[in-house]
């Protein structure tokens, strides 16, 4: 991914971008209507995205989504109520919508007591981060993609355009994050469930880079042409490619493994680390690496995030992600985490296994390109389950023998990232989240591959 223009401008409320200016003016106008000691916290999120959905190298659906949502928290002392409106883009309409919402929030405030966990930033620091690149027009992108899919069964989604998030408050703070990107998340299918998965994403479309991705996928499909084998349940030496490791890390992240609330309420899947001092492998170093991610470095109460929060160091717990509410509830400082306290830019420090010869390091065993549908068999013990998916191969002496039909694993993180972890690759792959629930994601991960001496498969 090549970066476009990036600017980080402390103290500067903005540079005249249309959506940014609109947000600024909307909040400034609303601030003038505040009553008494009211404080307004406002967050905008939006996108102007073109989507092309493909199946068998043809279009299933294509179109554009233009949306902006304004969420506000109206505070008076320690009492507050919150809400959101979808913005129309017409100032008179949106001023009226926001005024009505604020009036309703004022009425509701009469029903709520002081909130002891309310915390918002009162020391304004304004920032701006805008990254733009060269994205092809939709018809040109479609032509490129269909050309790559000619004679192949290409299925997936192309998304391109601007996404933005902003924070503003009545104390004068303004934060803006905007990026214009494209993202092609696709597979070449051979047959049934045999496919090579790939992702081409960035700020500037590069024909050569795309061609290289297409070529890699085509070679994977060729490897899949061999007769697949079915393995019996049992323990297998396994290499988890970065995308496979990402599935495991997402399960841990979304279930509170790195958030203080889940720690304090004993719901973390890494409970044994918390209670018994159990550790992962000393090779494992995990952090929230905001500086190298693609997510905004501010959150909805106006706090900025540090560049990095070490979460696991040398296999042992280090720090946790602390949202402003948790900071108040548990009496610790916030580090600007979002309300759900999961990492948005998770990174695992690479190891020493040469990335260009993982087959050699694996020797005989399973090469797992992707895992799928992970969940817990026993959350308190961090026992996880899930399926292999897409390109998974049986390797012998470092060479591909055959694709492997899907297998279910059921094993604990204390094995996979603990006593059974033999090594991590010496490079980490940047993995952009292609999901688009509600809006396009700005989450990412930076992960190496993992060589596991024994991984338990059960079905």
């Amino acid at each position, binding site marked *: 991914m090549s970066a476009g223009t990036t600017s980080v401008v402390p103290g500067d409320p903005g540079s005249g971008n249309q959506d940014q200016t609109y947000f600024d003016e909307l909040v400034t106008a609303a601030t003038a209507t505040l009553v008494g000691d009211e404080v307004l916290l406002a967050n905008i999120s939006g996108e102007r995205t073109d989507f092309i959905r493909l199946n068998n190298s043809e279009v299933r659906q294509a179109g554009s989504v233009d949306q902006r949502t304004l969420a506000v928290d109206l505070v008076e002392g320690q009492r507050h109520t919150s809400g959101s409106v979808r913005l129309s883009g017409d100032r008179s309409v949106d001023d009226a919508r926001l005024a009505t919402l604020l009036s309703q929030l004022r009425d*509701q405030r009469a029903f709520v007591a002081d909130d002891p966990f309310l915390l918002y930033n009162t020391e304004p620091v304004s920032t701006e981060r805008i990254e733009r690149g060269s994205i092809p027009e939709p018809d040109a992108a479609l032509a490129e993609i269909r050309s790559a899919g000619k004679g192949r069964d290409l299925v997936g989604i192309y998304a391109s355009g601007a996404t933005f998030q902003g924070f503003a408050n009545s104390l004068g703070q303004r934060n803006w994050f905007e990026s214009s990107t494209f993202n092609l998340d696709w597979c070449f299918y051979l047959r049934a469930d045999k496919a090579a998965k790939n992702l081409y994403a960035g700020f500037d479309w590069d024909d050569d880079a795309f061609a290289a991705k297409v070529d890699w996928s085509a070679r994977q499909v060729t490897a899949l042409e061999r007769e697949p084998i079915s393995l019996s349940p049992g323990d297998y030496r396994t290499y988890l490619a970065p995308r496979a490791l990402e599935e495991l890390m997402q399960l841990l992240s979304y279930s509170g493994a790195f958030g203080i609330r889940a720690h304090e309420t004993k719901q973390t899947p890494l409970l044994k680390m918390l209670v018994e001092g159990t550790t992962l492998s000393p090779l494992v170093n995990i952090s929230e690496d905001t500086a190298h991610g693609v997510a905004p470095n501010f959150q909805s109460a106006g706090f900025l995030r540090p560049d990095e929060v070490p979460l696991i160091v040398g296999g042992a717990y280090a720090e946790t992600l602390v949202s402003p509410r948790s900071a108040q509830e548990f009496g610790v400082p916030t580090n600007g985490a979002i309300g759900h306290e999961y990492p948005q830019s998770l990174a695992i420090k690479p190891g020493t296994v040469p990335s260009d010869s993982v087959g050699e390091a694996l020797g005989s065993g399973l090469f797992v390109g992707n895992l799928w549908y992970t969940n817990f068999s026993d*959350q308190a013990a961090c026992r996880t389950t899930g399926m292999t998916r897409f390109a998974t191969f049986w390797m012998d002496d470092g060479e591909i023998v055959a694709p492997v039909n899907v297998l279910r694993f059921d094993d604990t993180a204390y094995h996979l990232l603990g006593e059974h972890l033999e090594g991590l690759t010496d490079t980490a792959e940047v993995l952009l989240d292609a999901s688009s629930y509600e809006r396009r994601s700005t989450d990412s991960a930076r992960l190496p591959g993992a060589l596991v001496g024994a991984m338990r498969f059960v079905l």
Partner: protein
Amino acid sequence: MTDLLIESTALEDRLRSVLPSDVDYASVRLVDERSEHLRVRRNQLEPMFTEFDTGVMITIWNAGGLGYAATTDLSEPGLAAAVDRARYWAGVTAGAMVTTAAPVSHAVGTYVSPVEVTWDTLPLNDRLELLQQQSRLLGIDDRIVNWGASLVRRDVDQLLLTGSRNGDAGRIEQRFRFVYPSLNATANEGTNTQTRTFGGEAFCGQGGAEVLGRYGFGDAATRIAEQSLELLTAPNCPTGVMDVLLAPDQMILQIHESIGHPLELDRILGDERNYAGTSFVTPDMFGTYQYGSELLNVTFDPTVPGQLASYGFDDDGTPAERQHLIENGILVRGLGGAVSQERSGLPGVANSRAQNWNRPPIDRMANLNVEPGESTADELIASIEDGVYLHTNNSWSIDDSRNKFQFGCEYGQRIENGEIVGAVRNPGYRGISSTFWRSLTGVADRDSFTVMGTPNCGKGELNQVIGTGHASPACRFSNIEVFGGEQ
């Protein structure tokens, strides 16, 4: 914002006026939503949240192309710009589509959620006090380390106007009223943490304040708090091959993952292969495949009053009606809307649905129900010599063909010699969809039949979350691989 947009004739006239009349098919779908989210956690009110969301999607099929444009700008220029964008896409995609089969329905009709007691008869202060009361009933022991009670109310109005170069003019107005109550209690002792929940992923539906009584919201808190504590000292679920009796709030997940998703025609057609996956079901199976035992009868039924995914029409405007998908164990029909039916040549249902105005419709489950049988639930328990009775899903995982699955539950009860002998913790079971339903050896009767819904089914590229309904009695399956947690 208190005036309902769906009642604005000026807006409807504007929407109708921008709908092009020189294309094969055009539609404008307005969605106007108002929602309220209330939650008390550990006896402390969390920030109350009120949401307003309005937008439209313009869809145009023309000359073999399809385009959509979603916008929040409901002014005449804003709508005209969206129409232009949809036209642009229809032009770009002409000749490159997997299908040129546009929806054909231009139906006229209405649907309104049945509401017995309007939500506002329970004033905000009473709603907050109800949650505080439930919260106090949950936090009954120092070992309960986290607990909460929440209520979500959503009012969603939809207007679908359709037209074509032939002068067709459809109009469908649907007003949905949803209520989602929820409770949770988490108990901990050392490295053992156990959570019991109520509502959330099962006991929600359409209606007003009566939805709370329908599911016994006011009676559940003490039970789930006590069960979370009970699980701390309960033995681990045994491992082995045995009978399982699945309570309705686990059947909801079993139906959803291993019948619902595999029968979606868009999966069978390959649309989902890059994301949600494909299906072990192939087109040749319809009409002949023995999906389950003869006891298995599954209906697609959007007519059940108050069920979460009841509606009059899908988002392509197809009138919705009850259909059997599986009859006496034989697969007879898939879950696919008009476009998928045309593409596949297979029989389907009216289930082309979109999450919101900003997402295009795709094949989704609606209400997918297992019809009741003849046995009482007590008779099924009495018939089990060695087994477990499993309640409330808490873990789900299934392969991308919807075949190899592994599910876990919050609460298990050991059955020995026809009697429940105690609770077990961390129960799970695994199987293969294509053979699992043939292990169905008992279906409880209407007394155990429970109408439920799950609000968060994710699928599609671009991603969409939608509510689906499921109803089921308790069901017995024989010779299933069961396991517990780590010792």
